[in-house]
């Protein structure tokens, strides 16, 4: 029987939540790596027992751990992320120049074909590739070489937080950097170009600015990779041409600020967001935790509230903290900064709290197990 495994990264360790295909009863294991900030835990689609975990800590820097047995045993692997050729500096908050310095890995993107190949998105923003299962990492330097000298961090840091690839053409990549924007490559990362046309950000005076847009998350459906959905700082956006042009689809959302966005596994026009009140009030509007679903590819959104707290709820849902499984009906999962993880086994119609009182949830990834 099929099942699911949630890989949950938190401020103080990682947790593994498992269930069968019904997704009603859950087993919670953890913490793994107690005390470490775990920004991302991600399994390889090519080898579901291989899992990568990004641990970091202000005291001790970055540690990458890998499991080859589905999370039972872990070993530290390569944590040398050396910046290669390219601009030495990016812009700092005050407009001065500041050297690119590695802080942590925000996201892994393991290859669908080869379990030894994995991409990693870093803060300060850069993309690294490993071809030996994460033991050694090389920067794909042309990303920073393109426009990196003009990147300036947002409040969350200059982080490369999202990596998407096209299953039919793995050379086609789309990545997103907080406060820099979306960038695309058609040749496995040898060349990159900004893809932010149509984005509008009130803190950027030039409406045609090529970079500088605070993209919080992008998502797509693997069978229709040319359609991209974006939760920007403000605005929910959509592109129908692989990111070349964007248009707003915020429609009737109570707030178009937010962090997380996800696409249904079987319905490419069904999209999920969690509206957050504003950039200064990082909690749901009216203290009601609502996931909003559009079944029309945007603009028309319906609130999903059954099983979610509808009063006195002032949590946040961070950009990496939503994930969807491949089962039918589609399972939807998200974690909060107050340590709850919610699950829906019916496309979002109803929700249950799998676990509460974990440390603040940074990331949620679901694995559908056969």
């Amino acid at each position: 029987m099929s099942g699911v495994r949630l890989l949950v990264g938190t401020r103080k360790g990682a947790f593994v939540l498992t269930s069968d295909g019904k997704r009603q009863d859950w087993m919670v294991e953890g913490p793994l790596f107690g005390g470490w900030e775990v920004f991302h835990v991600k399994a390889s689609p090519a080898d579901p027992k291989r899992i990568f975990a990004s641990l970091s800590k202000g005291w001790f820097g970055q540690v990458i751990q890998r499991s080859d047995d589905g999370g039972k045993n872990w070993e530290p692997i390569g944590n040398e992320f050396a910046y290669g050729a390219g601009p030495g500096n990016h812009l700092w908050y005050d407009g001065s120049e500041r050297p690119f310095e590695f802080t942590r890995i925000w996201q892994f993107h393991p290859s669908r074909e080869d379990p030894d190949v994995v991409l990693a998105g870093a803060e300060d923003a850069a993309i690294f590739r490993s071809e030996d299962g994460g033991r050694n990492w090389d920067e794909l330097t042309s990303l920073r070489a393109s426009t990196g000298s003009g990147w300036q961090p947002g409040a969350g840091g200059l982080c490369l937080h999202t990596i998407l690839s096209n299953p039919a053409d793995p050379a086609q990549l789309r990545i997103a950097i907080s406060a820099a924007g979306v960038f695309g490559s058609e040749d496995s990362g040898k060349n990159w170009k900004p893809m932010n046309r149509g984005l509008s950000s009130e803190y950027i005076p030039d409406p045609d600015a090529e970079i500088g847009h605070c993209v919080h998350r992008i998502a797509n459906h693997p069978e229709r990779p040319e359609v991209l959905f974006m939760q920007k700082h403000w605005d929910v956006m959509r592109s129908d041409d692989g990111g070349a042009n964007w248009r707003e689809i915020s429609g009737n959302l109570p707030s178009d600020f937010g962090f997380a966005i996800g696409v249904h596994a079987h319905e490419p026009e069904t999209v999920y967001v969690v509206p957050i009140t504003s950039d200064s009030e990082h909690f749901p509007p009216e203290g009601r935790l609502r996931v909003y679903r559009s079944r029309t590819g945007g603009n028309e959104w319906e609130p999903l509230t059954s099983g979610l707290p509808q009063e006195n709820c002032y949590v946040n849902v961070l950009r990496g903290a939503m994930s969807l499984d491949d089962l039918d009906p589609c399972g939807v999962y998200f974690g909060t900064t107050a340590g709850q993880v919610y699950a829906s086994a019916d496309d979002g119609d109803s929700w249950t709290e799998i676990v509460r009182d974990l440390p603040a949830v940074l990331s949620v990834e679901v694995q559908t197990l056969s």
Partner: protein
Amino acid sequence: MIRVRLPEQLRTLAGVGKEVGVEVAGEITLRGVIDAIEASYPMLRGTIRDPATGRRRPFIRFFVAEQDYSNLGPDDPLPTALSGGREVLMVVGAIAGG
């Protein structure tokens, strides 16, 4: 043998007790000791010093015999009392918080 006392997080990561012993040939320096730690415990590579720059991580401190050697140059000599385990090199995670 040089005795090194590690902070709790690094002990857990390396699967060791409070103290480890490492061998350092020749003059005892921070670079030599950390090289030896990383050789014996590869999982600690990069946790005490930045692997790219070689700089001590800002919240790490090095104490020997009640003296702070955190800002000692990587190739400057540490106290000879470390030799033979008469004193301990303490790798300390600084307090940060309220």
